[in-house]
């Protein structure tokens, strides 16, 4: 049990380091509170965006928390891919540059899994293969207005 936990943890940690660096140019790793007996402690994340010192998770900004959380989700995906990912406005805290970085990461991952991403932001919509439009023209009934193909 502990053996399989440790193997899983090691693989996800390795993935996390690579993806966190890709998303925020910094160093990050996932850390066991109790290294000797992992199931007796929790799991924390040490993240250090570019040029900064190591930060406490709680004091991170909204954008930094989003990128760190997404790096963790992608680290799991690399280890145990699901057939589809459905994300609802995961880019809402991100500035222009980070929205683009996330959009490119999703694009590159979309060759091994399906991504359905609700977004209001240009970088995400422009990076996608296609956009499904929804609207409620009359009295609150949702209609799907069709699919717009990109480039």
């Amino acid at each position, binding site marked *: 049990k502990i053996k399989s936990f440790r193997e899983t943890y090691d693989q996800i940690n390795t993935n996390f380091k690579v993806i966190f660096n890709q998303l925020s140019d910094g160093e990050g790793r996932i850390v066991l509170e109790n290294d000797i007996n992992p199931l007796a402690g929790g799991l924390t994340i040490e993240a250090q965006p570019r040029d900064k010192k190591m930060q406490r998770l709680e004091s991170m900004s909204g954008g930094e928390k989003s990128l760190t959380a997404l790096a963790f989700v992608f680290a799991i995906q690399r280890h145990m891919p699901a057939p589809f*990912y459905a994300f609802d406005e995961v880019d809402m805290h991100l500035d222009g540059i980070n929205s683009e970085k996330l959009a490119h990461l999703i694009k590159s991952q979309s060759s091994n899994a*399906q991504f359905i991403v*609700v977004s209001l932001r240009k970088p995400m919509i422009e990076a996608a293969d296609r956009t499904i439009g929804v609207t409620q023209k009359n009295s609150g009934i949702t209609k799907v207005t069709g699919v717009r193909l990109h480039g």
Partner: protein
Amino acid sequence: MHISKIEIDNFKSFANPTDIPFLQGFTTVSGPNGSGKSNIIDSILFCLGLSSSKTLRADRLFHLINTHNKKNEASVKVCFSNGTGQENLSVKRKIKKTSAGFISNYYLNDKTSTLNEIHDELSKHNISPGCYNVMMQGDVTSIINISATERRKIIDEIA
């Protein structure tokens, strides 16, 4: 494998039966505030039994039934395909208001089934409540805000 179609009927703001086709790769869903984008994500969580009604912004299951007409049932069907164009798996869930409350029925490949049987089938394809492949609106920072122990439990589930 990927989602090839979602059939939504009378669920939340989808008063009319609606088929939404999906392709592999990267699809965005966009539209004005309140138009029904999050309700599509909710329909996937509802159908596959990945979340409770509370997380679907409904106090009781019957709040998921469209309020624009008198029909007292709603259903969502999620179809999966394995790339060859063939449908290789489908899950459907139907809820119906009755005098005593409401009934929730599950169907696996169009045959009556149970939530447990569906979860067993889905976890063969790495779809389970714990693998964070669905993120609801506002949830993106939740992995950071939960306790360290809860965060470790995510790894426990996967191991």
